[in-house]
């Protein structure tokens, strides 16, 4: 519903009013977010290192040295695996959690509250807690594995198990949020629609694809997508659970930017990596926008 439409307010006056309301938020966003990202693109073309005290133009030099670095390929590879497997399992488990929380049982309110807890506690705190649980010598989860298999694992010291552990912790953290969002979708669907689809023998996956997805408000898909993008941008998890190790086995792109920029002060290289992260996020966003188009969603 529009209050200041046409009529007694002319277009110039409406623009002035609009600028007064929207301007402040927009200026703050441009100054602290949009301008810095554009500036990053400029810095990515420079050799800019605080330790070596250099700041000069090198063109695509940073990108070339990134491409030639074999660890970079493994970092990109792990970032993609991390995002893809986290997303997949969060959707699957989120679906389970949503159905669980949608069922009728005693104490549903408190369980729905508990569902929010992994998401509201500071990531760095749960990351350290998991690091401890997974520690080889005195961790709780390690202790259970010893009791069951008789073999003491060093989950965070082995590249593959460290990677799996990191992904599992990430799923633990974001699954409830996904569940909540899918629950919102489930609750907006008329019961009969689901029942008749079940009668017709549609699998849960088809029901999800053809009923839940289209019927759930665009909110669900938007939040799901942003949630995936936020996971790609997050460093707290890696910083807390593995610090990128062993070696650089669990280093994701965002964490590499942090290392180059804030630990090794190679701002040129950090900016070049940032450009790549922005590209990756853009690709995911474009996939998201195509979903939006397909189901004719609006923001």
């Amino acid at each position, binding site marked *: 519903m*529009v*209050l*200041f439409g046409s009529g007694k307010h002319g277009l110039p006056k*409406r623009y002035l*009013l*609009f600028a*007064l*309301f*929207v301007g*402040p*938020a927009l200026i*703050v*966003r441009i*100054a*602290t*977010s949009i301008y*810095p*990202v554009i500036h*990053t693109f400029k*810095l990515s073309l420079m050799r800019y290192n605080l330790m070596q005290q250099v700041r000069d133009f090198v063109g695509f030099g940073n990108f070339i040295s990134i491409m030639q670095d074999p660890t970079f390929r493994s970092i990109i590879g792990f970032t993609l695996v991390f995002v893809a497997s986290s997303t997949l399992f969060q959707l699957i488990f989120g679906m*389970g959690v949503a159905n*669980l929380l949608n*069922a009728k049982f005693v104490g549903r*309110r408190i*369980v729905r*509250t*508990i*569902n929010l807890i992994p998401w*509201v*506690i*500071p*990531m*760095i705190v*749960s990351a*350290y807690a*998991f690091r*401890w*649980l997974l520690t080889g010598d*005195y961790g709780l989860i390690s*202790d259970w594995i010893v009791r069951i298999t008789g073999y003491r694992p060093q989950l965070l010291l082995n590249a593959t198990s460290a990677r799996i552990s990191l992904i599992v912790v990430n799923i*633990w953290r974001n699954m409830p949020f996904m569940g*909540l969002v899918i*629950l*919102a979708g489930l*609750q*907006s669907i008329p019961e009969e629609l689901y029942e008749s689809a079940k009668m017709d023998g549609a699998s849960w996956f088809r029901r999800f694809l053809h009923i839940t997805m289209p019927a759930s*408000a665009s909110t669900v898909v938007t939040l799901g997508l*942003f949630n995936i993008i936020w996971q*790609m941008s997050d*460093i707290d998890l890696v*910083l807390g659970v593995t610090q990128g190790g062993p070696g650089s086995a669990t280093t994701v792109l965002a964490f590499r*930017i*942090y290392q180059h920029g*804030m630990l090794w002060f190679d701002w040129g290289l950090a900016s070049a990596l*940032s450009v790549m*992260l*922005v590209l990756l*996020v853009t690709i995911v*966003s474009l996939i998201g926008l195509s979903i939006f188009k397909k189901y004719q969603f609006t*923001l």
Partner: protein
Amino acid sequence: MELPVWLKRKHSLQILLYAGLLIFVFVALLPFYWLFLASLTPQHQLFSIPPNYFPDLTLANFAALTQQIPFSTYLMNSLLFSGGSVLLSVILSFLAAYGFARINVPGSNALMLILVLSMALPPIVTVVPLFEVLRSLRMIDSLTGLTLVMGSVLIPFSVWVLVSFVKRVPVEMEEAAFMDGARLYQVLWYVVVPAMVPALVTIIIINFINAWNNLLFPLVFSHSVSSKTLTVSITEVFQARTPFGRPWGIISALGVTMVMPMIVLVLTAQKWIVSGLTRGSIK
């Protein structure tokens, strides 16, 4: 005696449901439970192998917290940082949301799309240029600089949520107020804000949670006790070593003090948080 088929099916479904719930609650709470128990465990019992499932209980770790780190300063900084970011983001977002929802000008939708999509820009990408910006403004290692940056990050989501709530406020009330000769700021303050209280409370809570949990900005832009927050302090305590290993006693005590306010918020405001996250589509 043989049970009828429908009863058996119903019972096994019930058992499955409660088993699922039990596993879910256990998994969701495990790290927090362990942290909580550890914070009450004497330091020397923390490093036993196998882990001590039933330790003696003590408050020594919390006492150590206040003695070994400037805990009250960090707590104050966290509160000022979170409170300031909430204030900045909610005021600016409320005004912007009102503008987007109520003023019809060409280009308004495109501008809102850009603003909301800027939510996707990874904060880590902005950190290096922001360092230069904040340095030139003399806002490195300052709560003002941190608040400005964090407040800005919270704006897109807040606008996105608030616009949908403004649109649900009937426009007739505002029109009537204008008819009676009220000025714009009076209409905003006496008509729109009261109608938006639930939405505003919701977004205040969500933004507070986000700012309270933020590690990146204070980690990068704070260099001294004067602007470091609790999230940074836990990473510093983690770096320290005791003769046994990491000081898990203090880490867990610090973790518990950071988690507790969030748990209280969720317990009291779960309904509001959920309605905000889903823009009112779950009640």
